[in-house]
């Protein structure tokens, strides 16, 4: 038998059974929800989130450790960090774009509201706090993990605190956060106190690596990093009247091989090398050339330690920089070739810095010995002629700091060095920082360090309106 239902007959049937249909309609909407409690109806799981309890394990501890390493990467060469901004602030880089925040830094007129500086500041603190979280979790869940892993977390803390002390005014703050998100606010401290704090972190890390075997590559790498960092911190602590810290610095780095490198790695799938990105690729930075009179001639020195090319020339085209102008349309864009690719590794600490610390420690009492160290380093680079004695103490200091500037270009030491020239060697601000007419018009400002970001005012331990304790070098 053939059976079919026309629209009309269906309608008729429905009309006849209107009561039933009514019930069905009501049930359709009511039943699916009526069987659930409100809490069930509102229960949502977000797969994108990792809950704090998920890291309460050995694997979780290791994941937090790796997260801390990535945050260090972002806080150094994988982000627009103090390595770049500090170089912009001094003479390593000049601004090549239209962002006012970068121009403020290049021009040494930095308001605390500067958002580029805030981002860099936050990135450093995040690396520091992630390292602290990793230490706590590893202590609890992986007590048998290699000691260098915990020591490297102490290294991150020491590195962050030190580089902040090198760049910021007095008034640095180091806060923390509890697992449930509750902030634990710190209070403002001087840069001298921050250096002491950094030294404590470095010593704690080194203490974990007292007995590292020479075959323990990772352990040796972290220990060397801690040693160079400790030397740098001690060197920062020297004063114009007390150079003993420099001697201690030299001692701290004595066992570090010149070839040592603590590297940040980059790739397209993680973090790009930001020197390459912001200079070679985006052309928002250009290598400095005697900026503001006092600046060193990085761009024109033809020094193989800071190899450069002019955007669009044959050398630059060979590394992919085909355009001749900066982002703002001005010319030339001077392009560094130390890190010619997105993936180029950046050694944020090296054995070369160790030798430079030794040379600085030797300089007052044994300038010849200091020069030997400098020239020994220069021998490692083809095309670098040996230096002659500069002749006077002041000229020797200039010579040493110039060597440091070229060897350590871009590694975040330049601001600290210029401040040390003022603080430890009695130079004036106008003699070391760029001065006069800024290259885009208007005079330079007189900042010799960076202000604590305005956002830190949200810390209840900060006196309202107080950005820095003082702005001296």
């Amino acid at each position: 038998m053939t059976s079919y239902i026309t629209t009309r007959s269906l309608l008729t049937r429905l009309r006849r059974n209107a009561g039933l249909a009514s019930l069905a309609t009501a049930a359709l909407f009511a039943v699916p929800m009526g069987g659930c409690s409100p809490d069930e109806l509102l229960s949502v799981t977000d797969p994108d989130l990792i809950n704090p309890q998920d890291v309460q394990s050995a694997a979780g501890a290791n994941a937090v450790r790796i997260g801390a390493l990535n945050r260090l990467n972002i806080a150094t060469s994988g982000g627009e960090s103090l390595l770049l901004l500090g170089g912009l602030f001094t003479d390593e880089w000049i601004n090549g774009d239209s962002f006012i925040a970068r121009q403020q830094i290049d021009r040494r007129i930095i308001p605390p509201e500067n958002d580029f500086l805030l981002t860099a500041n936050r990135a450093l603190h995040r690396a520091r706090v992630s390292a602290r979280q990793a230490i706590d979790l590893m202590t609890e869940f992986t007590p048998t993990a290699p000691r260098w892993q915990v020591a490297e977390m102490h290294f991150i803390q020491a590195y962050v605190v030190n580089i902040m002390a090198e760049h910021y005014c007095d008034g640095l703050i180091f806060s923390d956060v509890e697992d449930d998100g509750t902030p634990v606010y710190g209070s403002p401290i001087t840069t001298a106190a921050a250096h002491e704090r950094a030294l404590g972190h470095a010593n704690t890390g080194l203490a974990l690596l007292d007995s590292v075997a020479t075959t323990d590559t990772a352990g040796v790498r972290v220990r060397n990093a801690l040693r160079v960092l400790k030397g740098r911190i001690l060197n920062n602590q020297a004063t114009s009247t007390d150079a003993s810290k420099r001697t201690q610095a030299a001692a701290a780095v004595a066992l570090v091989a010149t070839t040592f490198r603590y590297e940040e790695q980059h790739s397209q799938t993680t973090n790009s090398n930001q020197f390459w990105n912001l200079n070679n690729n985006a052309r928002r930075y250009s290598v400095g050339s005697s900026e503001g009179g006092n600046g060193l001639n990085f761009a024109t020195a033809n020094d193989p330690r800071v190899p450069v090319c002019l955007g669009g020339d044959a050398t630059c085209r060979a590394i992919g920089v085909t355009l001749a102008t900066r982002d703002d349309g001005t010319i030339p864009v001077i392009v560094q070739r130390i890190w010619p690719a997105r993936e180029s590794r950046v050694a944020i600490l090296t054995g070369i810095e160790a030798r430079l610390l030794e040379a600085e420690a030797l300089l007052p009492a044994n300038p010849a010995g200091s020069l030997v160290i400098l020239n020994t380093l220069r021998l490692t680079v083809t095309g670098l002629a040996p230096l002659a004695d500069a002749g006077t103490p002041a000229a020797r200091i200039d010579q040493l700091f110039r060597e440091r500037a070229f060897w350590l270009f871009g590694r975040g030491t330049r601001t600290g060095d210029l401040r040390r020239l003022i603080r430890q060697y009695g130079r004036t601000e106008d003699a070391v920082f760029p001065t006069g007419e800024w290259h885009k018009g208007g005079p330079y400002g007189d900042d010799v360090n960076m202000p604590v970001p305005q956002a830190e005012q949200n810390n209840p331990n900060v006196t309202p309106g107080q950005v820095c304790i003082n702005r001296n070098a």
Partner: protein
Amino acid sequence: MDLRYVLRSLVLAALVAPAAAAQAQQGTVAGRVTDASSGQPVGGALVNIAGTALGTHTNAEGQFTIRGLTAGTVVVRSLRVGYAEQRQTVTVTAGQTTTADFQMRAMAVMLSPVVTTATGDQRRVEVGNSIAQINAADIVKQSAVSTMGDLLTAKAAGVMVIPGTQTGAGIRIRVRGTSSMSLTNNPIYIIDGIRVEGATGSSTVSVGGTTPSRVGDLNPEEIETIEVVRGPSAATLYGTDAANGVIVITTKKGIAGKTQWTYYTEQTAIRDQNDYPTAFRGWRTGATGTTNSTASNAVQCFLFQVATNTCQQDSVTSYNLFKDSEATPFGTGYRQQHGLQLRGGTEQVRFFLHGEWENEDGVTKVPEFEKAYLAARPFRTPLSGSQSNPNELTRITGRANLNVALADNLDVAVTAGYTSQDLSLPRSDDSGTAGIAANVMGGPGFKYNLNAAGDTLYGWREFTPRDVYQAETLQGIERLITSASSNWRPMDWLSVRGNFGVDYIGRTDTQLCRFGNCTSTTDREGFKIDNRSSFFVYTVDAGATASRDLTERIGSETTVGLQYYRNVFNRNGAQSEKLAPGAVSVSAGSVQRGEELTSESRTLGAFIEERLSMSDKLFITAAVRSDRNSAFGRDFKTVFYPKLAVSWVVSEESFFSAPGWLNQLRLRTAYGASGVQPGTTDAVPAYSPTIALGEGAEMPGVVFSAVGNKALKPERSAELEAGIDGTFWDNRISTELTYYNKHSKDALVSKIIAPSVGAAASRFENVGEVRNWGWEAMVDAQVIQRESFGWNININGSMNSNELINLGDTLPIVSSSTLRQVEGYPLNGWWARRLVDFDDRDGDGIIEYNADSTLSEITVSARPQYQGYSAPRNEVALSNAFDFWKSRFRLAAMVDYKGGHKVYNNTERIRCASRNNCAGLVNPNASLYDQARTVMVRQHPSASAAGFFESADFIRLREMSLSFNAPDDWAGRVFRGRSLTATLAARNLGILWTKFSGVDPEAFATTGDAPSSFQAFAPPTYYTFRLTLGF
């Protein structure tokens, strides 16, 4: 309120009702509604029985039948826009049909007597709020409406619409100002009773600013009416998320009667007729390459250098490539649209079917010089078709609406609307050096500039379309909005409704630079982005209304309702770089990345509302709604929103001695609250995944990324509204005047976390308080109404004031270098150090800065100061319509004003600060003010952009149209049709007056709360011919 109790009540009502209904002895009222003067049937009129849940609409013949009436005396009402309300008292006899015919008297005013509320259709006079209504069907037919933005712009007081400026660009809508600092200020959208997605900035690939909004997916041709529920006092029952207003859209429905076929087409030419800025260049002669101006370098002599004798200007040239037919990126765009609609059915089954295809090719074209360049180089790969037309929209829409009367007391409606859309957008706006705008507005002030390869750029800054247009950005949309609803009236006093719907959007965003294409070195290695997203918005809505006359004078309606919303968003994104030659897929790249993103929110709400009417003059509504939401913190469970509204037709009172010219006077007031929900995961502390490269490989790690807030709750806005409405002079003039005062408490402040904490940058806290207050007014007047000539004027306007009352213990929020949130000032106010004074002291005609304040010719404030509102405060729209020859011809025009705010002319700022081509920097004939603001942003230590915040008041000729409705017999004679309408229309005919010196005070690319006018194109002009044929 126990939600399960409400559910059980609804089910109980459903169970007992049929039995009760069977016991009643029922009768029927039927009749016909006609025009009193012409005798023609009036279709679509609402006929209902006062004090009951029973009602229906007339068919095309004006006929209606209402069954299921309890025997006795009833009042039958007939309501239709354009007619005065009519009532009849009739006696219903059990088992018989009582006749009630209406002859309705045409009324000049166009306000609909019925509005849509959260509990169903309601007479406007009963509602204590002012609800704006837009008669979309008429507007579409009589003017050039191609987008929802066209439909909404300047149509309703208090509803500010910033239209998009490129083909496919999104719109931004703000209702009664900006209330939220941290959450969306977008209104929510409801179509035929279900929530739909209306996000702005709906894209995952960047072209520099311009982004679509999902409201743009909707086709105005399918819409019957739009109602704007402006504030919390009216939106209470729409629940959490409704505090920013509700846009209620009703699509067209079938009308019982012979099937009506309607074909329409629009043919549109699009022109960009805006004045874009002229570039200047100061030439100098020097001894070296770094001091000598050439066609291939950027060496210039600026005014401040002239003043200090650093250089001399040999000459100053100027060039505006937009005015050069060889160099301009603009040509004539073309839009065409073809659609077919069917409406018809029987009393039992009515249908509306619609299908449309449209294509819009925007004004962005390949310049003539570029065509010549490419033609001369056959070895170079030419631009593809899509690359040559980088801004194009193609859309297919379809809709089927079915209304079925399953029984005398049971109606079911099923609706389905489908959109398939492909949009291509060029890199423009703030797309860095690769964007069109950066290149056409940043050029050097002369035509034949050269790049490093020796190619002439024709005044373009760095790149030309042969590279810029090679970036192909596409968005594909597949969208289905569907709903099923029922309305069951088991007894004449009880109505039960159910509504279920889903809005599904499948969105595919892609961006492709093929190997060897595009601008930058890295782009030319090739890359492909392919992000596929799904949006689901589910609505479950059920409610019941009981209507009773408590006494002879007092009627009562009690409504209970339950709503459940679920929003789900999923995205799978893939991206790869370094493509092989010829490759266009993600899998062909050597460096590949993927991402997965999910978010979901759920809301469960219930409400109860009681409406009392007293002698049909005084109406009191009280309601309360409670909501729970998955995004609330674990320590916060339920939010309650109360509502109280009163409407009083005072002119109906016996004590009111109305003059002859006054037809009706109504006083109304309403208080209500609503909210905005937090983001789906804002309450939760969490880690997020990351990848570190080291120790020999890429390693997975986690970082603590969100601190959460377990006490998080929704923002709560409470509003008091009061108004007076009147109709005058034989109903030829209608007026509305409304004052509102909206307080948003517990406003979510994205509280900055001190960076030293080393965690997230901010977290949401309910510590803010924002106030919006202002006036809205509307006057609609039929000034002349004769057979040969008619003149209608409509004016609507609004004024809004906004203040951030309280930020808790949070510091002023510095949102950017120019925007701040400061207590005592408007949200998103412009802030910068002020240009206090400027004076050409040395009389050399050049403003100079000197660090020595005694020598400086500009004075700048020591601290940032408030500069002004970033969004318009005041808005007025004036529409005039003239009818000729028995209303066969209608000439209409609309002029609108927006003002009370400032626009950040960021285009000029970057031209002066960085592009080095603005008059204030180069041209000795530039005004001293232009020079002063340039000196301030370039040379003064503040680098303040305050000089570029410009008063942005403007008057625009927004619309003009001439339409012709042919006599019916013409259509029959010409093509055996039913009707013929032809319309000539133009949209955005230009700015009539403004002080703004930039391109256009509505030239925004982004859709945020306070966008600057930054390298954005201005709105083009649309010239449209529309033909509508009825069969």
